[in-house]
Structures are given as structure tokens and as C-alpha cells.
């Protein structure tokens, strides 16, 4: 491990979070199919599709679900390369790695023998691995479509319209806002520490440095929460949360909602 690799990988993680948020913001402003729909329709429709994909047991139906997802992504002006780098390759690497041993350890009728080693791939093992990978790919792509095409504030308003408690919605909104502030703060702390570090740090010193940074961040977070609370009080907050819900359903939204629910029911009916 190089001298500051743990700091650099943490900084890379922070940069990736910012980059993902910026890409989502840009994608959400594209004039595409999903972006034109009422956020409530997007949330309910995508959620219904995800549940139906999780319920399905037939490979062909899940593959059709993935194809439908790709069509929706293209109609929403999302680049397939973006989906590939953000979802497909990542899921294939992670779930593929997990599913690989299932080819050999799942009991069933042998399909072929791997030459050189005494391992045979079973039909059931191959089908189980493909089913898992395909289902995870499809569900993750659907969730990513929702995130890319819907600003966070709209997702939260839609969840509120679906009767998620107002306190939870407000906490999700505030957390999202302060995540980026705290990432920026942590980023600055790590950068300034890195710029002042010369020579090799021992493992203990590295752990101490990380824990101190986290400790300072914790103290700052608690102070920030006091400041936010005072700011809320100054604006008249009395413990009751008020949220505006100003969405209006149009004909296209009703049509899209029907299509989403129809596709989900069809998938469950044919895929079980």
C-alpha cells in the first residue's frame, strides 16, 4: 500500500459521490420520457417493476424486463455507456463473483466437466447463477433509472404523497443536503492533513488520524445540528412538519401508470 493510498481512496470516494450527484442532476433535466412523467408515477411504476422482477422466476421474462428497461432508458435520453459503467459492469463484477461458485456447488444434473480440474457445471447451477445476475442487473438498472431521471426533492415529495410520514421525508431531505456539506468538510480535512504529511506514517498513526478526522466531523455535525435547529426555530418551526405537494397528473401520466402496472402484472403472471 502506498503512503497515502487510504486517504487518496477516501478522497476518490468523495469525488465519485459528487460526480454521481452532478450526473444525476444533469440527466434529470433532459427532456426524456421518464422526466416528463409525474414523479409519483415514476416512483410507483418503477417500484412495481422492481417488485415484479424480484417475484419472477423465469429467465425469459426477466430478460424481457431488462430489454424494456433499456428501451425506457433510451427514451429518457440516458446513455447506455453511463448505465454500463455505473450499473452493468459493477453488478456483473460483484454478483458474477458471488454467483460463480454456484455453477459448481449447486447439486443437479451435470452439464459439462471443466477440463483439468475435477469440477462439473450443473444445469441447475448455471440457471441459478444466470437468474441471480439477470435479476440483480434488471432491478439495479430500474432503480438507477429512477434516480437518474428524478431530482431527489421530487422523489421525496412523491414518497410523501404515498403517505410516508412527514418526519421521515424531512429527515431524508435534510440528510441528503448535509451529506454533501459533510463530504466537503471531510474532504478538506483529509486534503489539508495530506498536504502537511511528510514521510511514512505507521499503521497506528494512520488509524489515529482517520479516527480523529471522524471525531472532529462528529463534533462539527452535532454543532451543525444545533445551528440548523436554531435556524428552524427562527423560521417558526414548532415540531410539526409541513410539506408542499403540488404535483398535477396529466393524461400521459395516467397512461404511463397503467402501462407500468400492466407490464408488472404481466411479468408476475407469466414469470412465476
Amino acid at each position, binding site marked *: 500500500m502506498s503512503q497515502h493510498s*487510504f486517504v487518496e481512496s477516501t478522497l476518490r470516494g468523495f469525488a465519485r459521490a459528487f460526480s454521481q450527484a452532478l450526473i444525476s442532476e444533469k440527466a434529470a433535466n433532459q427532456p426524456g420520457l421518464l422526466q416528463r412523467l409525474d414523479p409519483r408515477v415514476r416512483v410507483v411504476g418503477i417500484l412495481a417493476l422492481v417488485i415484479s422482477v424480484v417475484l419472477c422466476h423465469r429467465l425469459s421474462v426477466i430478460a424481457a424486463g431488462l430489454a424494456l428497461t433499456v428501451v425506457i432508458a433510451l427514451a429518457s435520453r440516458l446513455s447506455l455507456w453511463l448505465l454500463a459503467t455505473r450499473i452493468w459492469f459493477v453488478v456483473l463484477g460483484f454478483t458474477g463473483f458471488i454467483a460463480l461458485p454456484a455453477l459448481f456447488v449447486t447439486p443437479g444434473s451435470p452439464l459439462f466437466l471443466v477440463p483439468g480440474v475435477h469440477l462439473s457445471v450443473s444445469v441447475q447451477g448455471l440457471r441459478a447463477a444466470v437468474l441471480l445476475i439477470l435479476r440483480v442487473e434488471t432491478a439495479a438498472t430500474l432503480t438507477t433509472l429512477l434516480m437518474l431521471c428524478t431530482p431527489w426533492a421530487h422523489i421525496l415529495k412523491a414518497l410523501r404523497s404515498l403517505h410516508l410520514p412527514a418526519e421521515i421525508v424531512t429527515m431524508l431531505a435534510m*440528510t441528503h443536503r448535509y451529506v454533501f456539506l459533510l463530504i466537503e468538510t471531510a474532504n478538506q480535512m483529509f486534503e489539508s492533513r495530506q498536504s502537511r504529511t511528510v514521510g511514512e506514517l505507521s499503521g497506528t498513526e494512520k488509524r489515529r488520524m482517520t479516527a480523529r478526522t471522524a471525531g472532529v466531523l462528529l463534533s462539527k455535525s452535532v454543532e451543525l445540528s444545533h445551528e440548523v435547529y436554531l435556524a428552524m426555530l427562527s423560521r417558526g418551526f414548532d415540531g410539526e412538519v409541513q410539506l408542499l405537494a403540488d404535483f398535477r397528473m396529466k393524461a400521459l401520466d395516467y397512461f404511463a401508470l397503467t402501462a407500468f402496472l400492466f407490464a408488472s402484472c404481466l411479468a408476475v403472471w407469466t414469470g412465476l
Partner: protein
Amino acid sequence: MHIPDGYLSPSTCATLYAFAASGWYSALRRVKRMLASRTIPLISVFAAFSFVVMMFNIPLPGGTTGHALGVTVAAIVLGPSGSILAVSIALSIQALFFGDGGITTLGANCFNMAIVGSVVAYGVYRLLSARAEVKSRRRVLAAAVAGYVAINTAALLTAFEFGIQPTLFHDASGMPLYAPYPLHVAIPAMMIGHLTFAGLAEAAISAGMVSYLQHADIGLLRGVRDGPPTPLAVTVQPSSSMRLWWVVGVLMLCTPLGILAAGTAWGEWSSADLAKPASRAQIEAASGNHAAPSSVPAGLRKLSALWTAPFPGYAPRFVKSTAFGYVLSAMFSVGLFLLGALVASRLVRRTQAQEPPS
């Protein structure tokens, strides 16, 4: 440990959502009672903090790095209820905004990491640091052990949820429909990584932060939940506890629905069931036509005579109506639970009163 969509069956997801929802509900009620109108900003900012700490790469012995959950520090500073909410909100943002963990599996992830993780971390920390000074080294050690145990408990639960999938959900040919590995594969595969890397990362960050706070911000180790009362504090309305009593009452009235279920639950057979030919036929049909034992097993016969329930089959002997017997049994059980809870809360209060102020 963040389970993506597709690894768990819908029924597992629904069950774990129900467990998580009960945890969220009671945590929210407790936190609102303690923090009143400070709940939202404090939990929100703490959730953001938990989210950012999960992104830290923690250097581990041997030159590798690992990610921590930060659930132990959250439990120490906020208490288990605050930690359950803060870590659940952080996990929800990870799933909904960054795609880390699934939507259908959000209940499972929150149950494993936020709820069980917080409760275990807090319990182990309190147990090991009982009567220790706030600045003592024992608290640092307690935080490390609490972090290690909490992460590994959460990982064990995750492994268990993975491991039961192929047994419960497979097709006619034996092909697993969800996570494909049985318990004897899933548990070692999951635990090796957590016993070595992730557990150490959580132990390191928890111990390091408690040690830092002992020197720099000792007030946080006494817990922000005990902060000063706020001028606009909102107290819990009595109507909210009334609602719970209504729900309990309706559930008690619904208990006679159990009469509608035909037959005996699989595996809950009595000696008499095994002796009667009609019940034996039902047992064999419910067990995939495997033959029932030719006579009542000796162990079952011996043990079944040990204890006679006061209300056998939820039907007290002095009540003629089966439905009324069900309701009476439900009322009796709820009363017993309330009595148990009352005694337990009195004991906890007495123990807390005897503990020296830290």
C-alpha cells in the same frame, strides 16, 4: 453487507420490512419523547455523518483498508433509538440515491445493520463499560469490542438470510431461485471477511473516536440525548399511545380468526394427534406422504406429560364458546406481557438510579 435487490425472496423482504418497521416506529417514538422538536435536525445531521463515515477507508493491520458502518459511535452518542433512525436514514439515502443496496431489501439491510447493529453495539458497550469513568481506557476497549461484535452479528444475520433462501425457495428441479448458497456455505463465506476486515474496521474507528472524544469533546460521550430541554419542546401527545391501545384491542378481537385455520400447524402435533388415525393421515399428507412414526415417540410422550397448560389450545376449560376462549386467552397474554414489561422497566430504572453518575 448491503444486500442488493434480487438476492432475497419477496416474502423474506416483506418479513424483514415488518421487523424493521416495528423497530423504526418504537425508535421514532422514543427519540421524539427524548428530543422533542430537536429530533429532526439532530437525527438528519447525524445520519449525514454516518453516511460520510461509511465512506472512510480505515487502515487495518497488514496494510489493507476496510469500511466501517459507524453504527457503534452513533449508538454510544445518540443511544440505540437515535442510532436506529440515523443509520436507517443513511442506508436509505445510500439505496435510493446512490444505488448501494436494494429497495426491496432496504428493510433487511436496516434490520441487520441499523436495528440489530445499534442494539447489540449499545448493549455490549454498556455492559463492558458499566461503572467505568467517562475517561477510562475500559470505555475505549468496550467501544472496540462493541463495534466488532455488532458488525459480526449483523453479518451473521445477513448470512442467515442468504443461507435460508435455497432451502425455502427453489423450483421443482432443485434450482435455487434467489441467493444460491445454503447456510453451511453462506455463513463461513460471509463471516470470514467480517471477522477479519470489516469487524476490525468498525472496532478501530469506534475505539479511535471514543478515545478522541474523551480528550476533545467529552460531553458527546455523556450522550446528546440528555441535552437541555428546548423552549419549544413538543411533548408526545397521549393520543398516540391511545392509538396503540386501540390497535392492541382490535387485534385481540380478531384472534378468533385463528379458528378458521383447518388442521394442525406442521410440527406442532401432540401425542394424541400421533395416536389418532385421522390426524395421522393429515400429518402424512402435510409431510409429503412420509410415513408418521408407528407409535408415539417415547421422548415426546414423556416430555408432553411434564407441563399442562392452563389454557390448552387457547380454550380455557371453564369457557364453552371457542371464540370467547380465544379473546380471553389474548387478554390474559397481553396482561402477562404488560406485567413483565412493568417489572423489567422498574428493574432497569432501579439499576440506572444505583449507577454512579459518569
